[in-house]
C-alpha cells in the first residue's frame, strides 16, 4: 500500500509538471519567427517542369532514382504526392494554351514558422531551427503519425512498408548543406532560377517586387507569408493557391494555438476538479449524516416520549390499584398490612390526633 500511494502521488506530481509545461507553451507572446531566418522562394511562373529539382533532391538524400525518369512527359498526366521515396514532386496544374505556358507547382515540406508537426509530437521529435529548416529526430519517434495526420500541406510521409524501423520522411530544406554555406540542392539544380534561396525577409521583398512589376502575370498573393503563421517556403504564381492544391483561405493564426488554449486548462482542472468532487462527496456525506442524526434524534425523542408515557401509565395504574384496594379496605375490616400509599394518607390523621 505504501508503494502504491507513493506512486500515486508521484503520478499526480508528474501530471502537474507536464501540465505546467503545457501552460508555458501557451504564452501570450506571439512568436514572429527567428530574425534572419532563411527560406526559399518558388516562382511558379519561372518553373518549366523539368524536374531537375526532384533528381537533385533524391541524390542528396540517398533516395532511389525518381520515377518515372526525367524526360517522361506522361508524369504530368496525374497528380503525384510526396512520399518516402520522393520528398519533392512537381505537378502540372494547367496545360499550355496557345502561347501561354503550362502552370506547375513544386510540392515539399513548407517548413512552417510555427510547425504543427512539432506541436502535436508527443516526443518533441521536431525542431524549428533558427536557420529555417524544421528537423526531425528519428531516434525518439514512436510512430504515432500524428504529424502526418495534422500537417495542413500533406507534406509529411511515413515509411508504412517498413515493419521494424519505420520513420517519418520529408524535405529537410538541406539543413546539412545550409550549415556548410551551400544552397539547398533543388535551388542549385534549378536551371531557370524558379527556386531562390536567401533570407526570408529579402525573399519577401523580392516576391513583392516581382508581383508589383508584373501585375498581370501574378496573382497578388505570396503564399506562405502569413498562412498558418507563415512558412519558410514562399510561393508566388499565376493561379490562386487553391488551384495549386494549396489550402483555400487558411487562417493566419499558427495551428498550434488552436490546441494549446485547451491543453492549458489541464492544470486549472487539476487545481479545481478534485476539490470540487470532494465537496460533492462532502455534501452527500453531510446529507447522509444529517439523515442519520435526524433518525437517531427521532428515535431518542420517541424513546423519551415512550418512557414518559410508560411512567405516567405506571403512576396511573398505581393510583388506580390503590383506589381499588381502598375500596376493598373500606368494605371489609382493616387490612393486615396497608400499602405505603395508605400510610401517607393516614399520616395527617396521626398529626391531628
Amino acid at each position, binding site marked *: *500500500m505504501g508503494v502504491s*500511494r507513493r*506512486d*500515486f502521488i508521484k*503520478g499526480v506530481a*508528474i*501530471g502537474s509538471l*507536464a*501540465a505546467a*509545461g*503545457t501552460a508555458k*507553451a501557451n504564452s501570450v507572446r506571439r512568436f514572429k519567427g527567428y530574425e534572419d531566418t532563411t527560406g526559399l522562394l518558388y516562382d511558379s511562373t519561372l518553373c518549366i517542369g523539368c524536374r531537375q529539382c526532384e533528381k537533385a533532391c533524391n541524390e542528396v538524400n540517398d533516395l532511389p532514382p525518381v520515377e518515372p525518369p526525367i524526360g517522361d512527359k506522361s508524369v504530368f498526366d496525374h497528380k503525384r*504526392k*510526396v512520399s*518516402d521515396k520522393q520528398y519533392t514532386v512537381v505537378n502540372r496544374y494547367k496545360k499550355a494554351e496557345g502561347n501561354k505556358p503550362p502552370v506547375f507547382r513544386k510540392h515539399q515540406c513548407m517548413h512552417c514558422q510555427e510547425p504543427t508537426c512539432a*506541436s*502535436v*509530437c*508527443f*516526443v*518533441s*521529435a521536431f525542431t524549428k531551427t533558427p536557420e529555417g529548416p524544421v528537423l526531425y529526430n528519428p531516434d*525518439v*519517434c*514512436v*510512430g*504515432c*503519425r*500524428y504529424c*502526418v*495526420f*495534422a500537417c*495542413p500541406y*500533406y507534406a509529411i510521409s*511515413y*515509411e*508504412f*512498408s*517498413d*515493419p521494424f*524501423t*519505420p520513420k517519418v520522411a520529408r524535405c529537410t530544406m538541406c539543413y546539412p548543406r545550409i550549415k556548410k554555406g551551400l544552397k539547398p540542392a533543388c535551388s542549385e539544380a534549378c536551371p531557370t532560377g524558379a527556386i531562390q534561396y536567401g533570407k526570408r525577409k529579402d525573399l519577401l521583398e523580392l516576391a513583392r517586387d516581382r508581383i508589383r512589376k508584373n501585375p498581370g502575370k501574378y496573382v497578388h498573393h505570396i503564399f506562405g507569408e502569413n498562412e498558418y503563421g507563415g512558412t519558410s517556403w514562399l510561393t508566388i504564381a499565376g493561379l490562386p493557391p487553391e488551384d495549386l492544391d494549396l*489550402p483555400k483561405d*487558411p*487562417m493566419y493564426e499558427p495551428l*498550434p494555438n*488552436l*490546441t494549446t488554449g*485547451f*491543453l492549458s486548462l*489541464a492544470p486549472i*482542472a*487539476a487545481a479545481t*476538479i*478534485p476539490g470540487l*468532487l470532494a465537496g*460533492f*462527496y462532502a455534501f*452527500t*456525506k453531510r446529507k447522509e449524516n444529517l439523515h442519520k442524526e435526524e433518525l437517531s434524534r427521532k428515535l431518542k425523542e420517541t424513546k423519551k416520549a415512550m418512557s414518559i408515557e410508560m411512567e405516567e401509565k405506571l403512576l396511573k395504574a398505581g393510583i388506580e390499584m390503590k383506589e381499588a384496594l381502598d375500596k376493598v379496605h373500606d368494605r371489609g375490616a382493616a387490612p393486615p398490612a396497608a400499602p405505603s400509599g395508605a400510610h401517607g394518607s393516614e399520616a395527617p390523621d396521626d398529626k391531628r390526633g
Partner: protein
Amino acid sequence: MTSAGEHKIKLLTPFNIISGLILLFGGIIVLLRFAKGLGYATNLNNTTAWGLWTGFKLVFVALAASGYTLTTAVYIFGMDEYHGLVRPAVLSGFLGYSLFILILIFDLGRPWRIYYPFFVQAGTTSALFEIGLCVGLYYTTQFLELTPVGFEWLGWKRWRKILKAATVAFTIFGLFLSLLHQSTLGALFLSVPGKLHPLWYSPYIPIHFFTSSAAGGISMIILIGLISKRVFGHRMEVSKDKLDKLTIGLGKAGSLALFIYFALKVVDLALGDKWHYLATGWGALYLTEVIGFVLLPCMVYAFGYRERNATLIRYTALWTVLGIIFNRLNVAVVAYNWKFPVNERYFPSWMEYVVVVFLITLGLVIFRYVSEFFPIIRHHPDFEESH
C-alpha cells in the same frame, strides 16, 4: 473458489467455438501486421495516416466511460442502489482501456517505444501526451479499484480493507482523469481545421467528446447488466426486478446525457454558423448522426423511463452505443479529408476490420471468464457485510 465450484463450465459451447476461431484468425492477422508492417495490413497512406484503428481507439475509450459514470454516481453522489453494478461497470471500463492500449500497440509504428514520451523525451504541447499520461494513470487507478476483487478471491482481508478505504479517492481521481482525457481525445482534432469537415470540426469538440462519453458509458452499463443477467441468470447478485428498476433509472440518466450532448451540437451549429452545410450530402450524414443517433434515442430513453419499460431502454442503450461508434468513426475516418475525391479516399482493408472484430471478441471473452471466476456479478460469501 466461488462460482467455479457451484457451476460446471462447458468448453465446447457455440460462444466458445466461434470466439475461439475469431481469436485464432485475428491473432494471425496481428502477427502478420508485426511481421510485414502497417503498409501490408492496412490501407493507411501519407494522406490518411490514421484510420479505422484510431477510430476504434476513440470508441473503446468512450464506451469505457461505464467505470467513471457509475463510480461517481455511487460513491460521490450516494446512489447506493446501483452498488451491485459497480464491479461489472468498472471491469468493462478496465477492459475498454485494455483494448485501447492493444489497438494502440498494433497501430504505432514502433510500439516498443511506447514509454518514450514519459521517460526519454516529453512533448508536452501535444494532446497525445496528455492522453497518454491520463490513460496511463487512469488504467492504474482502475486496476487498483478492481484489486479488492482479487483480494476477496485470494481471501486477503486486510489488503482488501486497505484498498476499499481508498474508494472515494480513487473515484475522484478517476473522474478527474476521465474528464481530462475523454475531452482531450476530441482535442486531437483541433489541429486539423482544414482537413476535418466543418460540421464535425469544432473548437468545442473536447466538450462534445466528454458529454457523449457519459451517454455511452451509461448505455454500456445497461447493456452489461443485460448480458450479465442473460449469461449468469440467478447467479447474478442483482435480482431481475431490481435490475429492471436500475435499468429504468439509468435510462433516465442516459436521456439527460444525450439531451445535453444534443444541445451542445445545436449550439455548435449556431456559434459556427454552419447551417448551410446541412443541405449538402455531408449534412445528411450529420443529421443522421445527430437526429437519428442522439435526439431520437434521447427521446426514446425518456419515453421508456416514463412507461417504466426496461426492455425499450435496453434497445435504446444499444442504439446509443451504435451512435457513439458512428460519431467517433465519422470524426476520425469519414469526415477527415472530406475534400478528397472518392478515388483518393481511404477505405479500411479487410485486415483492419478483422483486427477490430478480434479485439471486441477478446474483450467479451475476458469479461465473461473474469465474471465466472471472480466476485464481479455476485458477492463473495465471506465479504457480504461491507460490500
